[in-house]
């Protein structure tokens, strides 16, 4: 497909201004963030869904913030085809049933496009409803295969299998290790999904998985056993397809027990350097396959990060980047499809579906992203390594 525009780059400059006034009135992260209806009242209503309370709140809050930031920027730059965006975000507490409630709430509000949901499992439940309504859905971070199983749904992030396979491939091709241990969250869809495909990919690459130990959401403070097993099995590399909260504990405990293998993770690990007060020395040499790194030197990332920090105080993680991209992708596809505020959700969906496969977007999480009709993005994963407390592209 041909390139619609260069949304993120276009707005990178205006991002700073946005950040400047965003800091003033948006610090509280108010829902009404992007409520700036045009004079004629023509707005495109975009809904967002994700957990902003409960154990997974950290992901939902990042998405909510970044999406609001993007919506504001887009509106300041004139909106989509002249229509401004009205963005509303609803909490799903990382629960499928609540996600459906959130979806219905947004529908009652008049949502035309859905940017969500943040986590995989609720996403799988919601896609069922959006498909029935023929409503365009773009999830920033729902990574399970079935989260976008219908033709109205697309995603920004990689799918779990993709990440698992890519990680195995990367480790194999760069001969990082032959003996690998895995520590994963067996109660989490994302983590166990990646693990499965990683295991399959490892076989192909001739990598030996010497230990694969799980933990669960209910026992995620102590990882001494998993580490001990990896150590005893002589693992050279420990693969961590998990989120950074647990990873930060794993790094600390490995350090305490004097175990120093290579640590390799996926996008969930991104954000670890941003943990307030975290001793980044522990994360030295950690590698991760992620489309986004907040410390990247490029201008796009830099301006996004500073705008985000100014508005919400805190470094954005990869979820935020996905969400920010998602809004610009919607803009790009919307412009390509020529959607207008008075179109029905279903008409918008039909137009967007086609447009998605025709656009190319340069975003924070990938250059030249394109989509296939099955909703999967095509973009190159970046491998980064933490060196001197900062991400360094490999």
């Amino acid at each position, binding site marked *: 497909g041909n390139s619609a525009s260069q949304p993120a780059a276009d707005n990178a400059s205006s991002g700073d201004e946005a950040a400047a006034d965003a800091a003033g009135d948006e610090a509280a992260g108010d829902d009404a963030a992007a409520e700036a209806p045009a004079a004629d009242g023509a707005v495109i209503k975009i809904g967002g869904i994700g957990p902003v309370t409960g154990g997974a709140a950290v992901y939902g809050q990042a998405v909510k913030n970044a999406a609001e930031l993007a919506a504001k920027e887009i509106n300041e730059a004139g909106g989509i085809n002249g229509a401004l965006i009205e963005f509303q975000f609803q*909490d799903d507490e990382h*629960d499928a049933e609540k996600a459906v*409630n959130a979806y219905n*709430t947004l529908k*009652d509000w008049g949502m035309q496009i859905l940017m969500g949901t943040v986590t995989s499992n609720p996403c799988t439940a919601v896609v069922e*409803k959006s498909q029935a309504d023929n409503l365009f859905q773009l999830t920033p971070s729902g990574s399970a295969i079935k989260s976008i199983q219908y033709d109205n749904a697309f995603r920004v992030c990689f799918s779990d299998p993709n990440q698992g396979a890519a990680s195995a491939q990367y480790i194999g091709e760069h001969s990082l290790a032959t003996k690998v241990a895995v520590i994963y969250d067996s109660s*989490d869809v994302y983590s166990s999904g990646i693990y499965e495909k990683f295991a399959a990919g490892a076989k192909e690459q001739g990598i030996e998985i010497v230990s694969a130990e799980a933990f669960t959401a209910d026992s995620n403070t102590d990882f001494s056993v998993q580490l001990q097993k990896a150590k005893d099995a002589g693992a050279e590399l420990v693969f961590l397809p998990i989120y950074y909260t647990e990873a930060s504990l794993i790094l600390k405990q490995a350090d305490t027990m004097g175990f120093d293998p290579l640590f390799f993770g996926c996008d969930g690990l991104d954000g670890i350097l941003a943990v307030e007060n975290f001793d980044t020395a522990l994360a030295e040499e950690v590698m991760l396959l992620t489309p986004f790194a907040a410390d990247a030197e490029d201008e796009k990332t830099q301006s996004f990060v500073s705008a985000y920090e100014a508005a919400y105080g805190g470094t954005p993680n990869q979820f935020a980047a996905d969400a920010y991209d998602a809004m610009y992708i919607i803009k790009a596809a919307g412009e390509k499809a020529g959607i207008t505020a008075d179109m029905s959700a279903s008409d918008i969906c039909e137009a967007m579906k086609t447009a998605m496969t025709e656009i190319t977007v340069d975003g924070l999480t990938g250059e030249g992203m394109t989509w296939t009709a099955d909703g999967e993005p095509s973009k190159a994963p970046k491998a980064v390594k933490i060196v001197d407390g900062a991400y360094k592209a490999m």
Partner: protein
Amino acid sequence: MVIKMKKSMNKNTKNNFITYGMVIIVFAIVQLLLATGHVSSLMGGLLVPLCTYVILAVSLNLTVGILGELSLGHAGFMCVGAFSSAFFSMVTKNTLPGGLRFFLALLIGAAAAGLFGILIGIPVLRLNGDYLAIVTLAFGEIIKNLVNVFFIGKDENGYHFSMKDAISLDMTVDGETIINGPQGITGTPNDSTFLIGVVLILITLVVVLNLIHSRDGRAIMAIRDNRIAAESIGINITKYKMMAFAISASLAGVAGVLYAHNLSTLTALPKNFGYNMSIMILVFVVLGGIGNIRGSIISAVVLTLLPELLRGLSDYRMLIYAVVLITMMLFNWSPKAIEWRERVLPKNLFGGKTKEV
């Protein structure tokens, strides 16, 4: 005298019918609103979950209010009902007609949960008070944990089973994973409807209310009030405790079936099947008045709707919810508030009078 007794029997029959009537009237009103398009998507989507929680609350009230034992593992039974029935529905998705399939799924969910109720009841019911509570909590967590490491797949060679991961199922490429560990079951047919939900509520009510006012129910409440005295008049403690526990479990299983066939994805997360959910159901029961079935229904509905209605408050939503919960508890249970209410309000709103069914 006989006349007076008849009156008392009629009184509880009448009371039961008020409860049934309440449910039916609400159902009729909602149907009317649905037909005229006055129901928002949110409310429309909440109808089946509301039925699920009402059944859960009523069934837990049987254990907590009537049997008098604190159970913190009710969500575990719901989980068993949900997974067993969803598995059945997945397997027979293409072979059985929808109605029959769902009916069988209901029976299977109820039976499986009831069976677990009995299995768990054997050790649990030997304990008392808070020890019983903690063991039910433990069982609930065990069920949730085990469901998360359950893998069942099917290919042309038949069924495969593993407790490790999907890879260990060793299936051929076109094999389909039916239960995929933490990813659970995806693609369960959406068979649950509001009508079915309401019918199941009514069935639950009939079972629970009629049980309470029968010979067996009296035995169960006698055990609750004084175990030693109940033994001394020849009531079989184990049998009746087990009966109440198993019925309560299998009704929770029914709620699980309803839940599983409402969403297309079913996973056992702490949020939906962990102790948090068990406690949530307990909150319905206690807020509505322990032993007060009608109160359970009302508080399940109110507390399920409340967080949804508070969505407009965005970030403050759950905070306000917590404050409202605490306030309602104080208002409903504190002796001072009750006294004040009795004086000021003509009649209790709900749940004021406890242990009355």
